[in-house]
């Protein structure tokens, strides 16, 4: 019986070869072009013929039940071949064009949506949140669900000026794409770590802990005999790096943890070089289960962008063209001192010319 077998290690993943649809094998590296048939449906053509792709949304945090339903459909419509995308959508790889519509019908029936292609809002790259991570300032899956419920019409259509990539992360570690997304939703702590002076000496290495702080806010100290650390609260910017290396310095603070909104990042080299996401809204309350303040803010921004950007202009390209000041005017978002960079290369963000719109 299986578990009796000799223990093997370092075999790595299976070879990709056995997962490729026959049409893919024949056209491998020889694809000529692609077409977009409708939102969520692409066709790729090569010398050996055409492959049809139907892309559907996935919550990413999915159970065996969900996956079994998906796989049943893959067996039914795409010869058992399917894939996941780098944004966690699911792609069915069809040989038969006539299977497209029945598949879509079944997918809708099982409660998911087809879309995410071309100038759409695709799935949200996100993280663990309260479902699994100790570091989370907010939940990820819940935020994604609440936001995508609001934006689903942009997933199932291609009516935006360009692709719009949204990311969510639940703490400053930003597991995912927050630092380079058209719109990013970032959970954050806003108060310094609270030090557990009994636990710290046991659980943490003092030098590592002190070294972990980007702002040198942590100093060794001793509290009734035990060596522990203290935090200079004026220097702390709540990054959480100390907590990552030292469990006895939790930052979670239900009263003050919150959500921030960031804009204008991009990754592709298309037209403009990759851009980092910039701060738009420094703080919104952390308001489960549906985060109304966050969903409203995001929706307003998407609509403003949709109404004003030019074709193929990503959010950041649009704002760079009209200027950030105009963006703040149009969006009604308040520009505060928090928007002024004060980290390592802050000076490079200052307006060092007369180029301004009046």
């Amino acid at each position, binding site marked *: 019986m*299986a*578990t009796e077998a000799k223990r093997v*290690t*370092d*075999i*790595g993943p*299976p070879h990709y070869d056995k*997962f490729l649809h026959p049409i893919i094998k024949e056209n491998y*590296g020889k*694809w*000529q*072009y*692609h077409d977009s048939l409708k939102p969520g449906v692409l066709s*790729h053509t090569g010398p050996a013929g055409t492959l049809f792709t139907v892309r559907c949304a996935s*919550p*990413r*945090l*999915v*159970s065996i*039940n969900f*996956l079994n339903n998906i*796989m049943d459909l893959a067996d039914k419509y795409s010869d058992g071949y399917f894939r*996941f*995308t*780098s944004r966690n959508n699911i792609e069915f*790889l069809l040989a038969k064009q006539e299977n497209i519509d029945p598949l879509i019908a079944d997918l809708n029936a099982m*409660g998911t*949506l087809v879309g995410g292609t071309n100038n759409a809002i695709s799935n949200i790259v996100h993280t663990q*949140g*309260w*479902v*699994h*991570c*100790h570091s*989370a300032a907010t*939940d990820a*899956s*819940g935020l994604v669900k609440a936001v*995508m*419920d609001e934006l*689903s019409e942009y997933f199932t259509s291609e009516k935006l000026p360009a692709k719009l990539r949204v990311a969510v992360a639940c703490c*400053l*570690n930003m597991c*995912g794409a927050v*630092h*380079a997304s058209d719109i990013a939703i970032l959970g954050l702590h806003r108060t310094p770590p609270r030090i557990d002076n009994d636990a710290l000496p046991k659980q943490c290495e003092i030098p590592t802990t002190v070294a972990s702080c*980007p702002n040198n806010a942590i100093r060794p100290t001793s509290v009734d005999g035990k060596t522990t650390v203290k935090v200079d609260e004026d220097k702390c910017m709540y*990054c959480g790096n100390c907590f990552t290396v030292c*469990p006895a310095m939790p930052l*979670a603070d*239900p009263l003050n943890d919150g959500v921030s909104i960031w804009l204008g990042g991009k*990754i*592709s*080299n*298309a*037209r403009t070089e*990759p851009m980092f996401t910039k701060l738009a809204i420094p703080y919104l309350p*952390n308001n489960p*289960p549906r985060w109304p303040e966050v969903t409203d803010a995001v929706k307003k921004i998407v609509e403003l962008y949709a109404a004003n950007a030019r074709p*193929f202009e990503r959010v950041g390209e649009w704002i760079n063209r009209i200027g950030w000041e105009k963006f703040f005017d149009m969006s009604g978002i308040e520009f505060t001192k928090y928007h002024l960079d004060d980290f390592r290369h802050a000076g490079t963000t200052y307006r060092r010319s007369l180029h301004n719109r009046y």
Partner: protein
Amino acid sequence: MSDELKTPLLDELEKGPWPSFVTDIKSMAGKNEMCKDLLRQLEKSYEDRRGYWKHGGLVGVMGYGGGVIGRYSALPEEFPGVSHFHTVRVNQPSGWFYTTEALREVMDIWEKHGSGLTNMHGSTGDMVLLGTRTEELEPIFRALTEKGWDLGGSGSDLRTPSCCAGPARCEMSCYDTLDMTYNLTQSYQDELHRPMFNYKYKIKMSGCPNDCTAAIARSDMGIIGIWRDDIKVDQAAFAAYVDSGMDIQGAVVDLCPTSCIEVDGKEIKIDDSNCVKCMHCLNRLPKALSPGDDRGFAIALGAKAPIVEGALFGSVIIPFMKIEDGDYEPLHDLLERIWEFWDEHGTARERIGEFIERVSLATFLEGIGEDPSPKMVKAPRDNPYIFYEEYFEEEGASASEE
């Protein structure tokens, strides 16, 4: 504690058009205690607006230092089902291509040994099996390996490499992303499973500058397809675009960052010497334009999230390289030179991007034995603080290296 499941807050997330993870997890709650207590603890988090997980502990499988993220509930009495809730990272196949047959095998194992919950996939690319107990780890590992699967990376090791669909489903692909991903993953199993680096090292492979795996932003080593010769043009296909009434001027010509496209009637002319391979025109006109024949990839090192010196995009270290008839040796050699220098001179928890900035690009290039190229910078230095190494010893003596 009572068996019924009350989650009024989470239930709010069953409404709306987007598929609901709550509905899905609930569908498991019947057969799986872990799922039930996960929902209960999550409901409490939603009430209290805070997480209830302890800081990860060190758990794993025999002989591996990575691949498992230990996780324990901070409220084990209240939620015994998630007192242990470890993550198992399973190394996904290149490009996330699956057959139902193969994935069902993995799911059967997971149904037997874990919560039955997953992330398909994690942000690094792994198949993430979400929630199991310490004592299940070894059995899961055995069962997986028997079916030909292995664990992915975590901690200060090589992280699970991932890649875009590339040659398997894309006409833009400039090199074989799937094969390179497989090759690197298999060639560096030891680095992947046994953390020995200063910090994590992620590799992402995109077949062209569209960068569909976000390699330039999310991997310590981004390997991104590029070509050196001219864009291939099918003038007939271009004429067809013109005839289709597409706004070529507005959608293509005006958006070229270096204004190197000219359209003359139904003919397109590209000044390739000024093309910066941004992909936009190819993206708009896939039937008429495609990457040249001299294809390969550029390597950008050092991308990462902001902790702690601020987010970085990768910087071009190798402007162009190609795999000639399946020989990955030169790439392995480069990778090993990079790891060796970083290993020797980097500090603990210093990502390669931070390392390069600290020791300087010039020093790094010398360290790995590569020559400087203007392709590695936007512009030369603007400050006069140059560390000269050649100087004259005495009258007549010629320039000498210090």
